[in-house]
């Protein structure tokens, strides 16, 4: 942005300076008006490097976490230097439901299935309610209600997972078991998923609200001009238009749900043999059995057993392999959201 055009100043042409042209202009624009001191230039260059180093540290962390978890987790399958125990085959670990560490059985399928079940159930509650709530906030609520709902979501997301856990343990579990299960224990997927749903709903609401608010207003106006009701506009125009971003919101909610540990650990019952237990019992309908069998997930099992195992043992290594699996799932989820947003831009 070189010179203010002199014509704007309405000066007689004789007083204007000659503007350099061609090669002269290039030389002039390359030459700074003045030079900074040596110290200033040095500080500038070093600052750049320091800031870059901070950024690179984050990159290194991502790689470092992967490396160290893999170094331990892989030890379950390959004999490494620090190993004290026997090694397993991938099949014994990932495709077996038999988890009995003292007998040398390390099938982690129950935990994978547990994580997927509790996450799926939580999303089943949280995704529809979260998206509906975001429609309310973005398109229907008056301003005071918008502010109030944002406050509610901020508070819900700020409550620590152990407090959710203790609420589940002291209030929800006794209430459910007294009210519906004639006092048999209620620990299991149902209560875990309900609590998890409350924990991830703010994530979904906040992203979905952004999605609806960033839609062009012309979509609203167009459909209303065609005579649609508010809800018809939302259902037939706004939701399809925001679909990719709603999916992103749900996927990020899924990411939060699958990694949550403490709250679920306190209410799920921590039973690694839950699949076998569910198969044996016949006294209820299959759905109820699934919902109220004490179970375990990848995260709860880590919390439960990691402190009791010695570093380098097969048991310990398998637990780290479970952690690695969680981390890989996180990466997959982030890449999936990337894909979604690219598709949106295209």
């Amino acid at each position, binding site marked *: 942005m070189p010179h203010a055009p002199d014509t704007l100043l309405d000066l007689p042409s004789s007083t204007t300076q000659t503007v350099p042209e061609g090669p002269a202009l290039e030389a002039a624009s390359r030459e700074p008006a003045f030079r900074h001191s040596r110290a200033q230039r040095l500080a500038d260059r070093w600052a750049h490097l320091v*800031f870059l180093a901070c950024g690179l540290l984050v990159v290194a962390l991502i790689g470092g976490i992967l490396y160290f978890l893999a170094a331990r987790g892989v030890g379950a399958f390959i004999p490494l230097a620090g190993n004290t125990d026997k090694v397993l085959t991938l099949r014994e670990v990932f495709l077996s439901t038999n988890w009995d560490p003292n007998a040398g059985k390390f099938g982690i399928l129950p935990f994978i299935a547990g994580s997927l079940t509790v996450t799926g159930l939580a999303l089943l509650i949280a995704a529809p309610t979260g998206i509906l709530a975001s429609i309310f906030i973005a398109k229907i609520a008056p301003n005071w209600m918008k502010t109030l709902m944002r406050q509610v979501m901020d508070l819900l997301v700020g409550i620590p997972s152990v407090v959710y856990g203790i609420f589940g343990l002291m209030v929800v579990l006794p209430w459910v078991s007294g009210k519906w299960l004639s006092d048999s224990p209620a620990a299991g997927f149902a209560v875990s998923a309900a609590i998890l749903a409350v924990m991830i709903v703010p994530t979904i609401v906040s992203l979905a609200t952004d999605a609806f608010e960033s839609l062009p207003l012309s979509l609203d106006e167009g459909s209303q001009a065609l005579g649609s*009701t508010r809800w018809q506009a939302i259902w037939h125009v706004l939701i399809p238009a925001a679909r990719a971003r709603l999916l992103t919101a749900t996927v990020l909610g899924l990411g939060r749900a699958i990694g949550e540990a403490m709250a679920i650990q306190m209410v799920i019952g921590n039973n690694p043999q839950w699949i076998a237990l569910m198969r044996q019992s016949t006294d209820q309908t299959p759905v109820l059995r699934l919902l109220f069998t004490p179970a375990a997930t990848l995260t709860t099992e880590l919390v439960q057993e990691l402190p009791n195992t010695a570093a380098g043992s097969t048991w310990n290594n398998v637990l780290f392999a479970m952690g690695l699996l969680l981390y890989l799932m*996180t990466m997959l989820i982030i890449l999936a959201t990337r894909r979604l947003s690219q598709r949106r831009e295209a």
Partner: protein
Amino acid sequence: MPAPLPFRPRRFARLTDQVMRVGLWGLAAAFIAVLLVFVGVILKQGWPVLHLGFLTRMPETLDAGGGIKPEIFNSLYLVALSLAIALPIGLGAGIYMAEYAGQGRALRFLRLCIETLAATPSIVLALFGMIVFVQMMGWSFSIRSGAVTLALLNIPVITRVTEVSLLGVPRELMEASYGLGATKLQTILKVALPYAATGILTGLVLTAGRAFGESAILVFTAGTNTSQVFPDFRLTVPGETLSVHLWYVTSDGTLPDAREIAAGTAAVMIVVLLALNLLVRFLDRAIRRRTR
């Protein structure tokens, strides 16, 4: 009132519209009710336990009547330490992303890494901290292991907040600074950062709240014990925080009054977080007043 339409939507469409409107208000009310019941029940359960003695006594390991004095201290100490570690790194990375990285592949990759770190489950960070700091560095379960690992949780949040706040600085301000002959560093330090400070501070308070409530990371790095000295500023002693204490007393089950202690601890945490939330609102309002 919307202007009258040239024709009326069908009866069924109008009915659906009304029903959904009422339904959405109901859903919103349900969310508010969930929050109120939640906070209300936690405070009510904790209220009988909350007296001065509970806050100022040392915890017991086998008998009833223990307090949470060192846990309160450890919580604050660990949050402060982890923020002190994460703040320079997060600020630096955020400044790099907003002011240096440009728009190309480097920025996209950095952002991918920040997002991944932000989405990494805290139990995974706990495993990493346990391998690297507790075992390899030989720091065992200690305040320093906990603080460094907890910082990993804070870094992506601070980075993101710094980047967003810096991108919100009006371009004219920066250009005016360059026009006066300032270097890039001078412009960032003396123009952009002061302007973005309130936004970054808001982010810091939010980060503090998250770190305050975090438990999975600290169970595996700072441990479930606490020093018998008070206050103990040493970095090498185990430091059980409020959230870890709350989890540990309920899952361990040796205390006869575990339930009361857990309820009281939960109430204390809720009170602290409500206070932090008020602080964030206050800061937010300050930002909005200035930008208006």
